[in-house]
C-alpha cells in the first residue's frame, strides 16, 4: 500500500530522473564488479585492493589534468595504463608470494594491500577531498525534456556495455581468453597443459584494473569529491554485485551491478525515510542471495572436494 502510494506520488519526470541516476550508478558498479569477478574466478580470492585501485585511478586522472596539465583525453589513456600497471604490481608483490599459502593468509595480505594503498594515498595526497577537474561537455548538465542529467550519465552505460562486449570477445574468442578460462576451470591442469599461469594471472589483473580505471574516471566526473577512502564502500558493494550475479561470471557481475545500483537509488527514491540506510541495501541483498541461491544468479554450482 505504501509502495503504491509512493509510486503514484512520483511523477513520470522524477521517475525518469531516478532511473537515469540508477542506471549510471549501476553501470559504474558493473565495471568495477568485473574486476572482482575475474580475479575471484581465477585465484578464488577477494581482491580487497581492487577498491583502492579505483581510488588510485581517480587520483592519477586528477593529478594528470590539474598538476601536469596533460589534455584530458590523453590523461585518461595514461591513467588506464598506469592503473593496469598498478594492478599487476600489487599482484606480483602481495599475492604471488602467497600462491601456495593457506587461503586466510592471502585474504589478510589482500586486506593489508588495500589498507596500505589507502594510507599511502592519505599520506601522499592528504585526507582532504580534492575536486575532480571539470571535463568539457562531459561534466556539464543537459536538459532532456525536464530531466536534468549530467552528460556523462548518458555515456556511462554505453561505455560499460562496450567494455563488456570487448571483454567477452577477449575471453571467448582469443587464445589468451581461452587460457584464462582454462586457469579458472582448473589451475593445475592448465599448468600441465602448458599455460603460463603467472602471465595469465597478470593479464587478468591488468584487464580488471584497466576496467576499474575506466570506471574510476567516470566516477570522478560524476561524483567529483575525491578522498583516499572513496573506493571502500563502492568496492564492497561491487564485490556483492559480483556475488549476486554469480562469482566468476562476467555477465553476472554486470547484471549484479545494475541490480545493486538501481535498487539503491530506487529504494531511496520511493522511501526517502530510509535514505540513511542506503548503504545497508547491498548487504541485505548479499545475505538474501547467499541464503537462497549461494551460487548467484548466473553462477555455476561448485562442489567442495574433501
Amino acid at each position: 500500500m505504501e509502495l503504491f502510494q509512493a509510486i503514484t506520488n512520483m511523477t513520470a519526470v522524477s521517475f525518469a530522473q531516478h532511473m537515469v541516476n540508477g542506471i549510471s550508478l549501476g553501470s559504474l558498479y558493473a565495471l568495477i564488479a568485473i574486476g572482482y569477478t575475474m580475479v575471484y574466478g581465477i585465484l578464488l580470492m577477494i581482491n580487497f585492493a581492487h577498491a583502492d585501485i579505483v581510488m588510485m585511478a581517480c587520483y592519477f586522472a586528477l593529478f594528470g589534468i590539474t598538476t601536469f596539465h596533460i589534455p584530458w583525453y590523453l590523461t585518461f589513456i595514461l591513467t588506464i595504463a598506469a592503473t593496469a600497471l598498478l594492478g599487476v604490481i600489487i599482484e606480483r608483490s602481495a599475492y604471488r608470494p602467497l600462491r601456495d599459502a593457506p587461503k586466510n593468509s592471502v585474504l589478510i595480505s589482500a586486506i593489508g594491500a588495500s589498507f596500505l594503498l589507502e594510507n599511502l594515498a592519505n599520506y601522499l595526497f592528504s585526507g582532504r577531498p580534492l575536486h575532480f577537474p571539470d571535463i568539457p561537455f562531459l561534466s556539464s548538465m543537459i536538459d532532456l525534456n525536464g530531466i536534468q542529467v549530467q552528460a556523462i550519465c548518458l555515456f556511462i552505460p554505453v561505455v560499460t556495455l562496450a567494455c563488456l562486449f570487448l571483454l567477452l570477445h577477449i575471453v571467448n574468442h582469443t587464445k589468451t581468453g581461452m587460457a584464462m578460462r582454462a586457469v579458472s576451470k582448473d589451475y593445475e591442469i592448465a599448468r600441465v597443459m602448458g599455460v603460463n599461469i603467472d602471465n595469465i594471472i597478470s593479464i587478468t589483473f591488468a584487464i580488471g584494473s584497466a576496467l576499474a580505471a575506466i570506471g574510476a574516471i567516470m566516477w570522478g566526473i560524476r561524483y567529483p569529491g575525491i578522498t583516499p577512502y572513496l573506493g571502500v564502500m563502492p568496492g564492497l558493494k561491487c564485490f556483492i554485485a559480483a556475488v549476486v550475479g554469480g562469482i566468476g561470471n562476467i555477465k553476472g557481475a554486470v547484471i549484479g551491478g545494475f541490480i545493486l545500483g538501481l535498487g539503491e537509488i530506487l529504494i531511496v527514491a520511493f522511501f526517502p525515510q530510509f535514505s540513511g540506510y542506503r548503504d545497508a541495501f547491498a548487504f541485505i541483498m548479499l545475505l538474501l542471495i547467499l541464503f537462497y541461491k549461494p551460487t548467484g544468479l548466473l553462477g555455476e554450482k561448485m562442489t567442495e572436494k574433501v
Partner: protein
Amino acid sequence: MNNKRNIMLTIAALVILFGVACFVQAEVNSYVRRIINLCLVYAIIGLSMNVTNGFAGQFSLGQAGFMAIGAYMVGIFTVPVELRADVFYAVPMNPHLVNVYMPLWMALILGGVLAAFVAGIIGTPVLRLRGDYLAIATLGFSEIIRIVITNATSITNGALGIKNIPPLNDVRYIFMAAAISYVLITLLLNSSYGRAFKAIREDEIAAEAMGISLFYHKNLAFMVSAFFAGIGGGLYGALLGTVDPKNFLFTLTYNFLLIIVLGGMGSVTGSMFGAIIVTAGLEYLRLFDEPMELMGIAIPLFRPGLRMVVFSILLMVCVLFWRRGIMGTNELTWEKIISFVKHPLSGFRKKGVQGK
C-alpha cells in the same frame, strides 16, 4: 601432571600483576597509564578475535561492529542523568532511556550480552559461509551496525556521538577486566568446546564426521567472541570518554587483525604479546607523524599519515614473510618458562618441553 602447580603459578602471576597495576595507577603519569590501558583493552579484543579467527578458523571481520555495540551501551547508560540534555542537544533522548543510569560494570556486561545476542542472530545465516564470503559478510554487518547506530538518533545521538562519559583511566579496573576475560577464554579454549573449535579449524568435514556440530560450535565461538569484543568496546568507549560512529569504522578491525597475525593465529598468549607490541608500537610510531629535523634539516618525509603507512607495511611484511607470528599456534606455558629458567639455552637446541 603439574596442573595444580600451574594453576597456583597463574594465580600468583595475576596477583603480582595486579600489584603492579596498583603501583602503576599510583605512580605513573596519565599518558603512560592511558597507553597501558589501551594495551589491555586491545588485548581483550584481540583475544576475542582470536577465538573465531585463530581457534575456530572462521575468518570474521566484525569486531568493530561488536565493539560499537559495547561502547554505545556504556555511552548510553553511564553518562550522568543531569548531563544528558547537554549531550543530546540536537534530538532529545528517548524518554524511556533518559533516566536510566547504570554503573559501568553493568553497562559493560549488558553491552557484551547484547553484542553476543546480535552475533547469534547474524551468525545463523552468515556462518554457513566460508572464508572470503564470511569475511565480507561480517565486514558488511559491522558496517550495518554502524549505519543503524548513526541513524537511531534518539538513542545514540546519531553522528554527533555521545560525550561526557565519565572517563575511566584506572589501570586496576581495566586490568581486572582483562584478567577475567583471559581466564574465562582460556578455560573455554581448554575445555571440550575449545578442542571442538580447533577440530573445526583443522578440517570441517572431518570434524563433522567425528560428531561435532559445526553450526553449534561456530555460533558459540562467534557469540563468545562478540561478547568479549562488546566488553572490550565498552572499556574502549569509557577510556576515550566519548563514542562516535566514526570511531568504529571497519578499519578499526584491522588493528586487531594485525594483533592476532603478529601474535600468532590460535595462540592466547600470542594475542597478549601482539596487543602490547601493536598498541605500544603505534604510540611509538607517532613520532613519524611529527615533523623531524636531522642535523638542522627538516626531513620532508615526516608528516601526518606516515605512521599508518608504516603500520600497514608492517602488516604486509608480517603476512608475507612471517606467517607464523610470534607464537604460531603454541602457547607460552609454565613448563616452558621453568625449563627456560633452569636451562636458559636448551630452547635453542630442542623445541620447548611438552608438559604431561
